[in-house]
Structures are given as structure tokens and as C-alpha cells.
């Protein structure tokens, strides 16, 4: 602050020290929202822990183990404590770690987180936007539930955390830690921390830059990952009702700091660092996502002496490019259409030609036949004429023979001949 400006002393009480209160009032009026993502295998007590953390009973039945893939289920609740209204969204992974092939298990989670960032980015890029009343759905904290094996991290856990560490604030916790004894727990924690470090997984560090919280955050950082136990059942211990789990060999008290780190988790997550988690999500993870996304889309920051509004300009350029492509495609399609029409036309012409040829051929055939028939007819006519001539000649001879003194026998012969003739 104050680079290039002088500090001036105040001669009296001005009153802007009330600004933090003004801000607080505004936030109270507005309400807060906080989104937690719980990642872990089925049956590690994620829902129970949420119930215990927020001292309430969220709805939901325990998930089955037979999911075909990992799904994310999100539910939003309105909590109110004195005058603070909190819109809490809890996202749980359903079916994580249940499949035989877990190679792609982390993908739905990463996609979900990216989708939330994307919708915020879309809202921010709109021309007419309402950012201050936008319901922020970006994940502020990711609680990773580590299975209490007591040895080391499973490879699924390591891989998933590595994929998530640049997108969200990861807080690893050891679930169902009443299964591990104290000495095993210390070794387990050390092993986990060293594995995370050696694999370069960046987990969320509680901030130590402000004096009021630096001390407590510093000590807490050393206790990560927190070993927690969740329980919503209350038992009477001494003369107070406490949340606990009862075993034949004793009762585990959830809020007893010597039994588990639940109180530390609640302190860190809600009472001390909720605002910082939200801020980190916005200024670090979201900005990184935005940077990558915009660069991927081809936007660049122009240099100082270039035109203004690089975002808009590039967008316009892209739009023109896209329109140009559309036009090109249209042209292509048109060409193709013309081509096809031509082809079809050609085909039709061919067929037409063929038909003509066939017609000509048939016509010729028909003419030949006709000629033949006429020839035959002519022949026949000639024969008929010839016969007629012979007939007339024969009649002439007959009449002559009769005149010469024909006999009846001759007549009869003639008649016989005639009748044979007729």
C-alpha cells in the first residue's frame, strides 16, 4: 500500500475504523456460501463426519457399493447461527474406489470442479452480469478421506490427490481413525506426509501471515493430516452428553482432543480459516483455471501499444473466422450439390440416348418385317392372277368344246371337272 503516496497523520478521530464493521454488516446481510467436497472410498464415514462437523443431520442414505462409475452427488443446505446465514453445499463422491478398474476414477471429480469454475467464468464474461448475487458453486475445500490402513497411502489416493492439488484446497484426513492405535498413528502420519512431499502433492497450508492466527495455524499445520472420528450418537459420559462411539473395551469421545483430531479439524476448517479457504479458491485456483481456459481458447494479452480489448477483439476475430468457415462449408456443399445434379443429368441423358437407339432399332426391324410381308403379298397376288388367267383360259376351252358337239359324257366330265374345280 502507499507506494508513491505520503502518510499523513490524523489530528483527531475520523471514524473509518468502522469500515471492517461495515463490511461485516454487508456480509451478514448478504449471507455466506461455502462448498465442501468429500472425496473418499465408500464406507469411510464421509456423511457421518459432515453431520458431526455441522452438528446436524443431513439427509441421505448410505451409498451402495455396486456403482458402475464414480458419481458426484451434491446437496445444498441453509444453516443459520445467530445472525449468520450460511448456504452450505456438500458434494460427496459416490462409488469412489468400488470399481475393479480405478484408472479413471479421478476424472469425474476433476470434471465436476472444472464445471463449477466454468460456470463462474461464463458469468464473469457475460456482458450483462450479476456477479454480486451469483450463487458461487466453486469448491472451497476438499476433504480427502484416507483409509486407515496404518501403513501408507494407497496408489489411488496418491494419484487422485495429485490430480486435484492444483484445482482445489486439499485437506487430507485419516478417516475412522479409531482403528489405529496411537503409536501406529504417529508413524502413519509421518509416512503420509513424506509420501505427499516426495510426490509433490500440494496440500492446503493454513495461512501463517497474520499474527492473530499465525500461531494457531502454525501448530495445526504440524498435525496434518488430521485423524478424525465421526459420530452423531450421544452418550452420557460423566454427567454430560457427548458425541461418542461405544465399544466393549471403552468409549471413544469425538470431541476429546486426546482421542482424535476432530476438534482441530472443526477449528481449522470452520472457525479460523473458512474465509481464507474461500479467498484462496478465488484468487489462486480460479485464476489459474481462467488463465488456462482463456489461453486455450486462443486469447492473449496484447502488448501495450496495441489495440484495446484484446478479449473482445480476439473473440470477434474468432467469430469472423467461424463465420468464414461456415460460409466455406456452405460453398462446398453447394458445389457438391451442383456436381451431383450434373451427374444425375448425365445419367439421365445416357438413358435417354439408349432409349432412342432402341426405338430406332425396333423401328427398323418393324420396317424390315413389313417389307417382307409386302413381298409375300405380292407373290401371292401374282399367283392369284396367274390362277385366274388359267381359269379363264380353261373356261374358254370348255365353251369351245361344247359348241363342237359336246357329249353328255363330256358334259358330265366337264361337270365333274367343274365340281372338282369348285
Amino acid at each position: 500500500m502507499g507506494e508513491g503516496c505520503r502518510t499523513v497523520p490524523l489530528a483527531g478521530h475520523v471514524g473509518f475504523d468502522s469500515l471492517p464493521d461495515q463490511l461485516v454488516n454487508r456480509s451478514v446481510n448478504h449471507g455466506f456460501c461455502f462448498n465442501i467436497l468429500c472425496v473418499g472410498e465408500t464406507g469411510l464415514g464421509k456423511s457421518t463426519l459432515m453431520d458431526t462437523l455441522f452438528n446436524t443431520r443431513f439427509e441421505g442414505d448410505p451409498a451402495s457399493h455396486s456403482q458402475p462409475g464414480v458419481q458426484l452427488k451434491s446437496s445444498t443446505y441453509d444453516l443459520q447461527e445467530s445472525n449468520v446465514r450460511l448456504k452450505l453445499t456438500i458434494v460427496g463422491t459416490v462409488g469412489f474406489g468400488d470399481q475393479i478398474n480405478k484408472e479413471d476414477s479421478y476424472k469425474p471429480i476433476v470434471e465436476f470442479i472444472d464445471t463449477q469454475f466454468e460456470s463462474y467464468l461464463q458469468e464473469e464474461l457475460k456482458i450483462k452480469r450479476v456477479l454480486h448475487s451469483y450463487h458461487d458453486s466453486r469448491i472451497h475445500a476438499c476433504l480427502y478421506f484416507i483409509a486407515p490402513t496404518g501403513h501408507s497411502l494407497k496408489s489411488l489416493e496418491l494419484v487422485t490427490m495429485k490430480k486435484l492439488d492444483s484445482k482445489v484446497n486439499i485437506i487430507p484426513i485419516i478417516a475412522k481413525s479409531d482403528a489405529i492405535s496411537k503409536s501406529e498413528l504417529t508413524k502413519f502420519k509421518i509416512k503420509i506426509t513424506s509420501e505427499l512431499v516426495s510426490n509433490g502433492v500440494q496440500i492446503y497450508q493454513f495461512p501463517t501471515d497474520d499474527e492473530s492466527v499465525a500461531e494457531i495455524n502454525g501448530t495445526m499445520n504440524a498435525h496434518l493430516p488430521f485423524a478424525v472420528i465421526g459420530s452423531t450418537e450421544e452418550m452420557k459420559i460423566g454427567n454430560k452428553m457427548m458425541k461418542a462411539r461405544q465399544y466393549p473395551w471403552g468409549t471413544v469421545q469425538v470431541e476429546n482432543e486426546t482421542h482424535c483430531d476432530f476438534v482441530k479439524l472443526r477449528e481449522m476448517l470452520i472457525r479460523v480459516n473458512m474465509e481464507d479457504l474461500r479467498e484462496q479458491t478465488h484468487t489462486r485456483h480460479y485464476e489459474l483455471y481462467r488463465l488456462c481456459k482463456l489461453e486455450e481458447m486462443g486469447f492473449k494479452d496484447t502488448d501495450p501499444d496495441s489495440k484495446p480489448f484484446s478479449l473482445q477483439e480476439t473473440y470477434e476475430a474468432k467469430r469472423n473466422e467461424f463465420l468464414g468457415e461456415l460460409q466455406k462449408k456452405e460453398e462446398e456443399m453447394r458445389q457438391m450439390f451442383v456436381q451431383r445434379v450434373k451427374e444425375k443429368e448425365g445419367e439421365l441423358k445416357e438413358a435417354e440416348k439408349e432409349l432412342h437407339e432402341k426405338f430406332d432399332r425396333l423401328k427398323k426391324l418393324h420396317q424390315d418385317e413389313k417389307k417382307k410381308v409386302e413381298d409375300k403379298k405380292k407373290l401371292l397376288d401374282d399367283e392369284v392372277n396367274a390362277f385366274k388367267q388359267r381359269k379363264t383360259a380353261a373356261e374358254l376351252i370348255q365353251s369351245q368344246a361344247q359348241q363342237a358337239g359336246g357329249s353328255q359324257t363330256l358334259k358330265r366330265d366337264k361337270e365333274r371337272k367343274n365340281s372338282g374345280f369348285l
Partner: protein
Amino acid sequence: MEEQPAQEQKQQDAAKPGPGGQELFGYVGIEAVLDQIRIKTIKTGIEFNIMVVGQSGLGKSTMVNTLFKSKVSRKPLSYEDRIPKTVQLRSVTHAIEEKGVKMKLTVTDTPGFGDQINNENCWEPIIKYINEQYEHYLREEILINRKRRIPDTRIHGCVYFVPPTGHWLRPLDLEFMRRLSKIVNVVPVIAKADTLTLEERAEFKQRIKKDLKAHGIIVYPQEDFDEDPDDRLLNDKIREKIPFAVVGADKEHQVNGKKVLGRKTKWGIVEVENSAHCEFPMLRDLLIRSHLQDLKDITHNAHYESYRTRRLNESNMVGKSGTEWVPLSPFNGEPESHL
């Protein structure tokens, strides 16, 4: 863990179910987030930019010095300094601190406003300046690689000094306020109010309010931005009293054995911080003690957003017409096109 005992007490009344919400069986500690916000604000500090507009000699610089109880505004070195031929804008930035809360205060002065014979368009350099600040912010916001905290130079409040004529608002006042109330929070005040008696003040205020209403000028606090009934109640009370009749003074005098800021005249001492004498305390409370954050919020959520929408729509239209990119020249003629 020092908060533990206090929290135990809160446990009883804290766990009431919210309207239509989830019931909490016990104390969770969500309200600790308020403290977290407080700590964060104190750590990051505040930026506040105020502009004072009015003719020379109305006591603008003195007023700002009185508001912030320090010499944050430079008065003209001598009264023989030439009045500038055109309106100039001079910004001075100071860092002030009170009870751990740091503020970076920028005061923009406008010498030359309304001082010429022909004052036509004297508001344009001011409008241009305000829009330039919005432009800077927009450019920063639109970068791919942007800063964690974008430096905020946008004007959060513009205090307009009305000369105490006692009659009506002059055409210059009306023109200026009409144009500026659309892009920035305008707080009109009656300057040098010690020349008006209390009755004259009341009458003047009524006339001013009527004038403003008749011309459709909406000054801060704007009715449209009242968020809930409580806000409305509070702001209605303020709207009753604006414009505040103020007197500025940076000299201290002895009154009844106490040191007070005031102006000494032959007929008495005008105490600046006495609400019976003038309304300076109300102005100070409005600007600093109660509505500082509100001024910033309205600037950011309403004025800046409408500027941004306008700008982005314009660039869209330029692109559509197919012409080349017109480098956005410094708003020549732009103030008129949308006002």
C-alpha cells in the same frame, strides 16, 4: 483458543433453526467467519477515492481537510494563482491509518469548474476522467494474467458544492448533477452554509429537493439500491436531510474550555462539529462512518457494471459492422451519446 469461553455462552441461543433451513443441534462456530472477515479487512486495507466539484472559493479543500482531519487537500498557494482556463483535475493520494485500519485516500479536485464566463461543457473533462478510471479497471479485469488485487482508482463518491444563494439550483448545477448522477454517486452539499439562517437553509433545501425531483436527478443514496427494509428506513432518513448544509474549518478555537474546530467571527464561533450549527457531522457520518462501504459497493456493482455493459456492447457493434477496429479514442462526443 481464547474464544472458547465466549463461545460456550453463545451455545444456548446459537442453535436456532433458520427459516426453512437445517436445524443445528449445537454450536458449530460458523459465526466466527465474521471475525475472519474483520481480520482480513484490517490486513488488506481500504482504498477510497473521492472527488470534490464546485466553483472556486466554496471551501472544497477546507472541507476535505476537515473531513479527514489532516491536510489531504492542497489549497491554492496564493489567491493570485490564475484560475485555469479549462477545468483541470488534480488527484492527490495519502495513506492514513486509524486503530490499525489503513486507508489509501485519493482526493480529486477540480479547479476551474464553473469559473469561466462561458461554462458550456465544463463537465466533460470530469466525465471523461471518471470514465477513464472505469476503463482502467475494466482493462485490468479483462486481462488473462491479472493481478490479485486490481488497483481501484474509480471515483466512489463525488461531492458537489452548491453555492449558498438561497434561491434555486442554477442551470450549471442542474446540468452537472443530471449528467454525473448517471455514472457516479453524487452527494450534493450546500457550501459555506454559515451565510444562511436555519429557516433559510430549510427553505433552500426544500427548493433544491423539488428541483432535483423535477429534473429526474437521482443523488446518493439512490432508492433503487436499497436492499432491505432496514436499509430503506435508514436511507429515507438521510434522503430527508440532503443536501447537507456544511461548514468547513481547519482552525481550532477555545469554546467553553474545549478545543473545537470552527470559524471565528465577530458575532460568535461557528462550531463545525456541532449539529446545531451545521450538518457537517452528518456528512462525515454518511461518507465515512456508515456508508463508506456502501459507496464503494454501489460504484462497483451498479455504475461500473453499467459502464462495462455499455463498453462491451459498443465493441460488439463495431466488430459487427465489419469495419476495422476503431481505437477507442478518449470519449470525444461519447458523453453526449449515451446521456
